[in-house]
């Protein structure tokens, strides 16, 4: 197994406010990892740095031994926490866009998933509900054969039935070699699919452990441990 993601003394501050402070992290490939922390703990900042949407204030970040850039973007499939597509586009236009730019995008798989949800490829995004738009974005992200999937709050803001669909889609579309990093604060919903968890608090990693270790050594669920660690 190789290291898919590595952070060395990674720092990011916005003006005088520090969002991430000396983050050191190494993630092995082939796992589903939960990036867990309360609101404002730095989850999204770390994810944006992984995707090159922010520049670190200091420190280094490597994805599959490469710094963030064209090579890393080829193997990272990213689901942001909000809509990021032009609302005027039709679903099939977005699919052809992804087909053009991502070599690992499997168009047929995307159309199959769309058909299962009865979404018409000719529909424009602006005519869709928030939940449907999130599903379309998830289909785009999971139809890639990426090495690292980075999902920022994939289940926030959708109903429990849609949550099940999203989690099933994630599980059924990823292969054993790939790595999934999921950020969320809705832990009980995703606890069952996680292999590892990273707790992040005030821009610092406060725990990085396997889920089995937490259950065996502490005799607690991840949700219970989270509530204990982050008690207000």
């Amino acid at each position, binding site marked *: 197994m190789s290291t898919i993601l590595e952070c060395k003394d990674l720092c990011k501050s*916005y*003006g005088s406010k520090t969002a991430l402070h000396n983050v050191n992290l190494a993630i092995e490939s082939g796992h589903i990892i939960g990036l867990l922390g309360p609101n404002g703990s730095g989850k999204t900042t770390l994810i*944006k740095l992984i*995707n*090159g*949407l*922010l*520049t670190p204030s200091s420190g280094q970040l490597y994805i599959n031994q490469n710094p963030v*850039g*064209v*090579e890393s*973007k*080829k193997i*990272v499939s*990213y689901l*942001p926490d*909000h*809509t*990021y*597509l*032009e609302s005027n586009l039709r679903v099939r236009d977005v699919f052809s*866009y992804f087909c*053009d*730019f*991502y070599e690992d995008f499997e168009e047929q798989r995307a159309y199959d998933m769309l058909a299962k949800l009865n979404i018409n490829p000719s529909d424009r995004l602006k005519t869709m509900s928030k939940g449907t738009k999130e599903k379309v974005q998830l289909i785009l992200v999971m139809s890639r054969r990426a090495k690292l999937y980075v999902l920022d709050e994939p289940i926030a803001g959708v109903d429990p039935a849609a949550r099940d669909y999203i989690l099933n889609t994630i599980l059924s579309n990823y292969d054993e070699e790939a790595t999934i990093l999921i950020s969320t604060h809705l832990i009980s919903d995703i606890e069952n699919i996680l292999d590892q968890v990273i707790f992040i608090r005030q821009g610092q990693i406060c725990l990085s452990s396997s889920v089995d270790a937490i259950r065996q050594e502490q005799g607690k669920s991840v949700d219970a441990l989270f509530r204990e660690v982050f008690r207000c």
Partner: protein
Amino acid sequence: MLGKLFKHEFKETGKLLIPLNLVIICYTVIGAIMLGSRLFDDDHFALLAASSLILYILSIFAIFIVTFIFFTVRFYKTMYSSQGYLTHTLPVSTGSIIHTKVLVSVFWVVVTMAVTMFSVFAMVAVTIRTHLSYDSFNSFFMEFFMEFNEEFGMSFGSFLLPIMLLIIVGCFEGMLTVYASLSIGQLFNQYRILAAIVTYVIIHIAVNIMGTVTMFITEFSAMDSLFIAEEFSDSVLGSFYHTLFSVSNIEHIILCIIFYAVLYFLTTRKLNLE
């Protein structure tokens, strides 16, 4: 990948820019038919003629304003706002993205200008043509070029060339000023659009002051040669004209390079998406 970027950028921008240019062409055809039919020779139609002309001028202005706003908003949305999440996670270099955005927007502005110039020229030509016979129509232009040459000591082509160049450089500078201002605005964590607007206004004022100063200095030094020349000849006037435009063109090209460098540096090294 650069080809694909261009393809998608043309496709998305063409959705607005093709119809806008078709509007100008439609106006031209309708205008030319009205002018060619001598409809406006009748005094009764004077009001219609005047209002058509005003409508035409206002529409052209509106089209340019819409184009300018469209590219400004599009650049902000796709580079530094929500859609930037897609733009900057594509496996292409940031440099290629910037090249595509700049070249495609300048292409459309230049095309729209060319279509407008063609439109004005076509209407003028039709007006002259309707009032002159075919032979005199041709000889009108021949005479115009001849007289121009005699009067100013240079061909009409060499008079037009520096102006054309300045227009194209001006299009680049216009778009690059906006894009560089937006790239500075995105550095701020709050009030990013306001910061971009303030930056734009400051750059605009600074560039105008600089332009006036350079123009003044150039005219002043070139004026000397006009007075020193014992005889006020056409060639002196020609060289004065060309010096003026060359200095202006060089100045604007340098500004374009500076704005491009700012845009490139801030987007590749200091990207800060909301």
